[in-house]
């Protein structure tokens, strides 16, 4: 690769470096060479799949066939009547609505403690809380199937401490499986949100804190009237980052519960995976239609993100 580039690199020496009227296109051919890997790669692996999904969504395409037959909006009509699709959709929304505030809120509380100069061993604690972030989601899911087993340590510990009457497996119970997944997800990712918050808190100048002390504000009042208003723009950004992250939970949920028992924790990604790759008759078109509906939701969130960031930037500019 490098040798190929070097050979072509011989620059046209006679062209003056800043010659105004000279054909810019000829002189700047290398710009497009530099862009080539990204344009081809991004085009083929990000933009094309986005467009292709919409096309696939209009096809009846059993997985073993070379290609599908056009059926128009039939897949979408079927999706609207598919209880399992809406079940998965609802599970994904519940996941979002419960897990994101938990992750953002707990991380903020922890960040406030770890940001205080009076807290001992701050760096050490930060490292411990960050540790789960670097681990593999799929493996965390498997390890927690053991930890959450009815005869495993979590159940035993809860029974021994009197918080639980009899041993229970929260991941294998239809009423709690989704929430078990949420708890593990918050555990795994809290550390990264903690780092976001610590970075945000670092932007508050130390003299503001001192001014609050001089004015006799207690810890709570300082947080409520000084820290919190300054943190609002970051709250928007961090919440939106974590919201998008909450749509990427396939690895953890597939290995922890595989959507079960009886679809009680099946999020939309597992639904798509199951329909496209695991069914006895894989339905690529139908799964694509589900992905497209899912994508519309994500795009709506991305638009919310753009609006939110713009608003946050405005606030940062004025404060």
């Amino acid at each position, binding site marked *: 690769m490098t040798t190929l580039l070097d050979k*072509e690199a011989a*620059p046209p*020496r006679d062209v003056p470096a800043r010659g105004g009227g000279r054909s810019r296109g000829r002189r*700047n051919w290398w710009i497009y060479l*530099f*862009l080539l890997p*990204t*344009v081809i*790669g*991004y085009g083929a*692996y*990000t*933009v094309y*799949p*986005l467009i*292709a*999904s919409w096309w696939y969504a209009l096809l009846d395409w059993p997985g073993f066939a070379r290609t599908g037959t056009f059926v128009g909006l039939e897949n979408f009509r079927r999706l609207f009547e598919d209880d399992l699709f809406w079940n998965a959709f609802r599970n994904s929304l519940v996941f979002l609505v419960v897990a994101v505030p938990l992750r953002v809120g707990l991380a903020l509380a922890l960040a406030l403690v*770890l940001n*205080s100069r009076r*807290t*001992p*061993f701050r760096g050490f604690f930060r490292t*411990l*809380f*960050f*540790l789960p*972030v*670097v*681990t*593999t989601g799929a*493996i965390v899911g*498997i*390890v*927690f*199937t*053991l*930890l959450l087993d009815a005869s495993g*340590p979590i159940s035993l510990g809860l029974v021994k401490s009197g918080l639980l009457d009899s041993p229970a497996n929260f991941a294998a119970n239809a009423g709690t499986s989704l929430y078990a997944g949420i708890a593990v997800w918050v*555990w795994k990712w809290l550390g990264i949100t903690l*780092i*976001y918050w610590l*970075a*945000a808190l670092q932007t508050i100048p130390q003299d503001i804190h001192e001014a609050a002390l001089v004015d006799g504000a207690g810890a709570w009042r300082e947080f409520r009237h000084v820290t919190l208003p300054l943190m609002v723009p970051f709250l928007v*950004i*961090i919440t939106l980052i974590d919201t998008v992250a909450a*749509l*990427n939970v*396939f*690895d953890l949920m597939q*290995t922890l519960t595989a959507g079960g028992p009886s679809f009680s924790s099946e999020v*939309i990604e597992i639904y*798509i995976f199951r329909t496209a790759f695991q069914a006895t008759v894989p339905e*690529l078109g139908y*799964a*694509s239609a589900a*992905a497209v509906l*899912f*994508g519309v939701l*994500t795009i709506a969130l991305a638009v919310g993100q*753009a609006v939110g960031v713009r608003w946050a930037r405005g606030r940062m500019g004025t404060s």
Partner: protein
Amino acid sequence: MTRRRRSWLTGIVLAVVAAVWVYPFVWLVSASLKSSSEVFGKGLDLVPADLRWENYARAWTDVGFASYMINTVVITLGTVFLVIVRSALAGYVLGRHDFAGKKALIGIFLLTFFIPEGYTIIPITQLTDQLHLLNTHVGVILGLGAGGHVAATLLYAGYFRKLPKELEECAELDGAGPITIFFRVMLPLAWPITATVFILTFLFAWNVYLLPLVFTLSDPDLRTLAVGMTVFVGEQSTDWSGLAAAAVISLVPAVAVFAVLQRRFVDSIAGAVKQ
């Protein structure tokens, strides 16, 4: 309550919470050294009766985690290399030069910033199949690194934009062409961004699950650690200690990289959110 006492109290509460936080890892390491019947048979006791290192040997050779490890390393390094080269080249051009279509390119980047992988996995699989790259390392690496990673490109663009214009002018006077300037001057200067992109991409590629799973459904020789773990669960569902050992083997490299580059990890992530 005096300040000193209060800070000690905070420390103790934090220590308890942190102990709960890392408990799963402690339990995992302990289980990996027990016998399988001991894992669930001995209640909350974390200390193994005797250390059974053979669990690791079993996971490494019999179950095939040695080859899963090689696959994961190859795929991770390939993806990291691809993302760094591609993002640095594009970031350099985006950060320092004007060209036709620049606005359109940035617009496309921003529009597609947050596409979750579950959304495009079907067309990516079809594309890879048509390129005859399904069930190859290259196919997985392209799937993971060729698209996406807009953040890496934008980080490079932001960094290159801030470098002084004189750098190129001097190099041009010395007769260097744009490609020499980039590889000899610009890319070395951007090492902090390269470190950040390395860390973020390494984490992503080492831990990714869906794409390797789908791409290797029909070829066990290509399994990564994450995929291998799930297969292990399906096939040997009662070998708890072997499973725990395999999990430790899979998690250690990423934790080791984190331990070595800890400071930079935190700065990278903090820097990314401030952008």
